[in-house]
């Protein structure tokens, strides 16, 4: 067993860390306040990411990507996670579900995404279908050779800047032991498809500038060639390719928690009250000890989950543990960092109130903490017949 990074991994970490420090940190506060990313800034981050060969670093080399394995990519995500999501989104990592593209889809969607010419977004959630994905109402009916889609999606991250949206749509129903459930198919939907609209979403307390959108389908006709994977095969493709997105949330949460901690530690050593640094008060020092313990634990859980994926080992429970622990650690750490900064911690002159707001969504998206605990406990109890 070896817990050290290889030379390559260390260089990857150092490079991405320098990138976020130089190209992203200086713009975070203004983007958070404005609630949007200036076009030129987005273009500049994209170009710089391409210049250093990190664009699509998660995609296989066979399609022109960087070919990083799960562990190396998780390190990239961890370093990116230190920075604003509104901005690090432009450090392009196309959804790896695009590897399911076949035939003409390869040149139309996969390759342009890897080259950074077309941006993807991913749509699953609906107002009445959050954690219960199979309760989705957005549905398609076959008409001639086309699928005619009606319904809506919401909370669709960065669809405002997407050229196409990978959308999960109900294409029928089937009887299951737990009643009727939707059959789901994954479609590639171009931004300019008639009957399809990408509308502004809600103003979220977390990740301002990283916009969520509402998708509207009104008699939107999609030829069968827009199906990604198999008809009714939405769940298979989801499980094959989107299995590890929870690790991304975990890794980003670890990165942001560590950044908040690293900014707070020297403060506790320098800030004096009652004639001594506040870090000398046990009430403060023990909070520092607890924070670093939880952050390190979340870090190792996350990296171990990625390592298991690379080894081909079962990782579902481990990834769920990483997600739940990393996101809850981030919540605690950002809250504690504000506490240790006192009133100033709440002011937007310092980044802690932003970290604290941004932390909130991490326990909700990509599977809530409750869903993760369900996955973990089911994994434990099922073999016992419970």
């Amino acid at each position: 067993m070896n817990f050290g990074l290889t030379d390559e991994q260390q260089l990857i970490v150092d490079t991405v860390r320098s990138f976020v420090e130089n190209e992203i940190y200086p713009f975070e506060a203004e983007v958070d306040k404005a609630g949007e990313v200036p076009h030129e800034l987005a273009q500049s981050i994209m170009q710089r990411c391409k210049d250093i060969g990190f664009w699509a670093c998660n995609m296989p080399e066979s399609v022109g990507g960087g070919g990083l394995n799960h562990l190396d990519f998780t390190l990239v995500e961890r370093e990116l996670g230190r920075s604003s999501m509104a901005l690090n989104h432009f450090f392009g990592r196309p959804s790896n579900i695009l590897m399911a593209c076949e035939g003409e889809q390869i040149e139309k969607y996969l390759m342009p995404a890897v080259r950074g010419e077309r941006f993807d977004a991913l749509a699953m959630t609906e107002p009445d279908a959050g954690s219960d994905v199979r309760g989705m109402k957005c549905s398609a009916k076959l008409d001639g050779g086309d699928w005619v889609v009606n319904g809506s999606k919401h909370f669709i991250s960065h669809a405002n800047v997407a050229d196409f949206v990978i959308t999960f749509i109900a294409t029928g129903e089937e009887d299951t032991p737990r009643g009727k459930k939707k059959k789901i198919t994954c479609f590639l939907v171009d931004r300019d498809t008639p009957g399809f609209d990408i509308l502004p979403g809600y103003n979220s307390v977390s990740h301002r500038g990283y916009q969520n959108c509402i998708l509207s389908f009104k008699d939107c006709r999609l030829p069968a060639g827009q199906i990604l994977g198999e008809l009714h095969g939405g769940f298979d493709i989801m499980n094959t390719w989107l299995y590890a997105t929870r690790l991304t949330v975990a890794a980003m949460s670890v990165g942001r928690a560590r950044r908040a901690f690293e900014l707070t530690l020297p403060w506790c050593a320098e800030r004096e009250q009652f004639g001594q640094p506040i870090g000398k008060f046990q009430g403060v020092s023990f909070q520092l000890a607890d924070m670093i313990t939880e952050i390190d634990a979340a870090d190792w859980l996350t990296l171990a989950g990625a390592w298991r994926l690379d080894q081909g080992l079962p990782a579902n429970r481990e990834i769920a543990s990483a997600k739940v622990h990393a996101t809850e650690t981030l919540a605690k750490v950002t809250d504690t960092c504000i506490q240790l900064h006192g009133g100033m911690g709440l002011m937007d002159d310092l980044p802690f109130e932003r970290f604290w707001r941004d932390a909130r969504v991490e326990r909700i998206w990509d599977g809530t903490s409750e869903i993760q605990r369900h996955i973990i406990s089911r994994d434990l109890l099922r073999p016992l017949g419970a």
Partner: protein
Amino acid sequence: MKILVTCKRVLDPYVKARVKADGTGVNLDNVKMAMNPFDEIAIEEAIRMREAGKADEIVAVSIGAAKTEETLRTALAMGADRAVHVVTEDDIEPLGVAKVLKSLVESEQPGLVIMGKQAIDGDSNQAGQMLAALLGWAQGTNVSNVELDGDTANITREIDGGLERLALKMPCVLTSDLRLNEPRYASLPNIMKAKKKPMDKKPIDELGVDTAPRQTLVSVSEPPPRAAGVKVASVDELVDKLKNEAQVI
């Protein structure tokens, strides 16, 4: 043309230096280390020269303990072609560094040596000048611009009160100033290639040069904490204080 570039492993410039309790030096245990920023600039300049077709090989050199290899890997990931690691556990003084580099220049026969103007640990700003003297080569220190033209290096130096332009006969030694360029990030393809690039390890004793220290370190101490400022009532009082208290005029 081959370019020899130096890269020293130093305390990360963004880490606060802390003096050891016994005053024998700066504490380097468990602190983040990085490549000397001026050396990063030197490597960037060499890479740009290669990209412009003025050079065909870049050899990165560093002197230090085992971990120095990490700094050389960074140089390789930025784009250097191969590395030479002169291995020693000792802290080598500028003259010793210059002698080691002279020995490497004699075996490598580069057409140009580019170094950082100084390393941010000792801040000596001597090794480049000493190397040029030992080799009998021209030297351009603190350069903010370099243009190669055949056997001539046309350089701009940042000097007190302005810029100095010189034409140097090559081979020569250049040392980089802050404004020479902005170093690039290591690219992912280069990071992946770095491991496969050759790295020679040479124990310092095998070079046959005398690197014995000529100085004795007496003590290292923190700078005195900054005292609170005072308000002066008049220009006369200010001038008096500058003359007699601060003794700067």
